[in-house]
């Protein structure tokens, strides 16, 4: 990073670079955020004419006394904790292997990337069939190991694991590609120097590759956490528009969706959106705080 103090001139130049991005973001991201934030305080509101007749905290009071909302927060947390660590670790391992393999590398990369290329809607339908309790592929496979058939999608205990497995599978390609970029950005000379110094493969991985890869690991973790908190499409398709058996996959966004689009409770939906936003914000701030100590830029 350039350690120079900002001046008015440098600020103007920077904003010229930022302008295209800034304009679009202000109009299509920031403005809706403020709108939603305001809407979360509307307690009496005509959606059609956009007339607000009363303001207050009632929407927040409602969600914080709604057991379904607590359930959705809990389910979202479980989902994020189930997906992110495994997904990051697995994709890191696969990316490292792919980086080393010399034979058929292109073919392997394509195979691992394929799930990400697919539309969520189409592939979730395929997974529905894979998870079928009677003739699904997964149970047929597990039966070779003496596992009794599991009703993945209709048993409240298994619905969340089923969702987590599918999400990891679908998202791996995305993370792998980012790690591959990270790996290709590492200057091979660092590794060569370490080798000359007599470091073995494991030492080189721990002391050279991993630290140099840490900016990308950080990026992958942050974005995985954020997209994990926002999970919705997969649930909607996998469980046929319902929040899973016994609401076991009712997440915050699903809660928001139901309140907004089928229960006409705009204020409550907006309030739950604001809470989700704050939740993600806190987790991301923690990640940034942690990264200050542990992420190394070359």
């Amino acid at each position, binding site marked *: 990073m350039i350690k120079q103090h900002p001046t008015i001139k440098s600020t103007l130049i920077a904003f010229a670079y930022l302008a295209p991005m800034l304009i679009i973001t202000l109009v299509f991201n920031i403005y809706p955020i403020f709108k939603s934030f305001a809407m979360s305080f509307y307690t009496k509101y005509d*959606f059609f004419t956009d007339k607000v007749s009363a303001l207050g905290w009632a929407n927040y009071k409602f969600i914080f006394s709604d057991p379904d909302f607590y359930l959705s927060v809990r389910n979202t947390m479980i989902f994020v904790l189930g997906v992110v660590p495994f997904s990051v670790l697995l994709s890191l391992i696969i990316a490292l292997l792919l980086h080393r393999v010399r034979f058929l590398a292109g073919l392997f990369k394509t195979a691992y990337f394929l799930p990400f290329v697919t539309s969520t809607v189409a592939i979730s339908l395929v997974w529905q069939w894979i*998870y079928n*309790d009677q003739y699904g592929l997964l149970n047929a496979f597990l039966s070779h190991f003496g596992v009794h058939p599991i009703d993945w999608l*209709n048993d409240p205990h298994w619905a969340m694991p089923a969702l987590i497995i599918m999400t990891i599978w679908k998202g791996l390609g995305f993370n792998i590609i980012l790690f591959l970029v990270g790996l290709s950005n590492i200057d091979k000379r660092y590794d060569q120097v370490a080798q000359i110094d007599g470091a073995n493969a494991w030492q080189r991985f721990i002391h050279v590759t991993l630290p140099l890869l840490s900016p990308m690991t950080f990026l992958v973790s942050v974005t995985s956490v954020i997209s994990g908190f926002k999970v919705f499409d997969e649930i909607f398709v996998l469980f046929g528009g*319902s*929040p899973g*058996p016994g609401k076991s996959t009712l997440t915050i966004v699903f809660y928001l969706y139901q309140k907004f*689009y089928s*229960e*006409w409770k705009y204020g409550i939906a907006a309030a739950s959106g604001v809470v989700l936003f704050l939740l993600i914000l806190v987790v991301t701030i923690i990640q940034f705080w942690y990264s200050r100590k542990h992420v190394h830029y070359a």
Partner: protein
Amino acid sequence: MKTHKGLMLLATLAAAAGITLTALRPAHAADTSTNRTKITFWSGLTGPYQKNLNTIVNDYNQSQTKYQVVATSQGDYTQMNQKVMAAAKSHSLPVLGMTTYTNLPDYQHHGFIDNLNPMYKGTSSKAKNDIYPAFLSGSKIGNTYYSTPFSKSTRIMYVNKDILKKYHLSIPKTWDQLKQDGAKLKKDGIYAYGFDKSFDMEWEGMAHAAGVTPVSSTGKIQVANKKSITAANLVLDMVKDGTAKSAGSDNYWTKNFVNGKSAFYIGSSAGLTQTKLQAPKTLNWTTAPVPSYEGKSGTEVAGNDLVLFKGANTKQKHGAYDFMKYLLKAKTATKWAKLTGYVPLSKSATNSADYQSFLKQHPENKAAVNSLPKAFAQPAFTGFGEYYNDKGDAFNSMLTKNTSAKDALTKLAKQAKQITSAN
């Protein structure tokens, strides 16, 4: 070399900007129609169903010269609903739209739709009486009309004749018989009764037969009534002893039915098309009316109505009325029913020679039509969307978490009370 690359990139970007500018021009359809009033119509139909709708719309456009109906598919019902909300907010709703009749009170409450009294006023009482009462009652809020029935279906029972023959069974006329058949089929791992994700519509049917309306339009709540609980327990007991089964995440039992997993399947008559497609040629199957409960039949109707969105001008409104009347005509209703497998909307459509000869060729469509005179529509009320979600949760919890019918329905009754009193 490096500057060269940079320049190339810039050139590409400039080209891209050019494309963007050309692409941004509104893609206006070439307006071929001269001075016809354009009636935009959003449907929640997709694929072959939308194609059939276009056939009917073309018929209408050719039948007169004043109006031009333009029907476009807006995805399935959930997608369409999101779209309607967005369009309502930006005041860009079409003239006509399709929606489930249960949405009417919410649409009306939030000021999305106009009433159709002027249109119905221009309809003779004879023509009104011709429409099946279950459909017409769904079109009303209080005494005001807000929709016309359109793509309608009823609950029917799909019957696997091969299983019937093998186990010497006859088509059950009552729920008790259905239950008894279950005992005979159980030992071979065949279910007597397969249902969709939930059996709430059958529950409502049984309750109706027993004289109970779970939530009435005036806000009287009998969800956790003794009779309602008994009806739910009948099915739950069957599920527990392995004679009935939910389709669960498959949503529809059709797949299991065509594979001989159950002797009977109670589902929507709209599923006939899928069943015909999916059933192997070797399978012998037919349909029958839903079994009776406590000596009475209770077949619920479902499906979509047409509504007139707010914001249309007088000319457009008149066009909309004209088109809606056209759809209700026996001839149009017959053609629509034949094309899609939805049920005819009026008695005269059912009795037309055209439709009767269609039934001869497609006997499996008979059960739905025969159930129509005694069919009923569940009353809708403001906040129905919320009640619908809560109902889904209640039945899901009975089926997946073994919550007792009493507990689940008592909770649902409480929620229903809150919803109806809040609005």
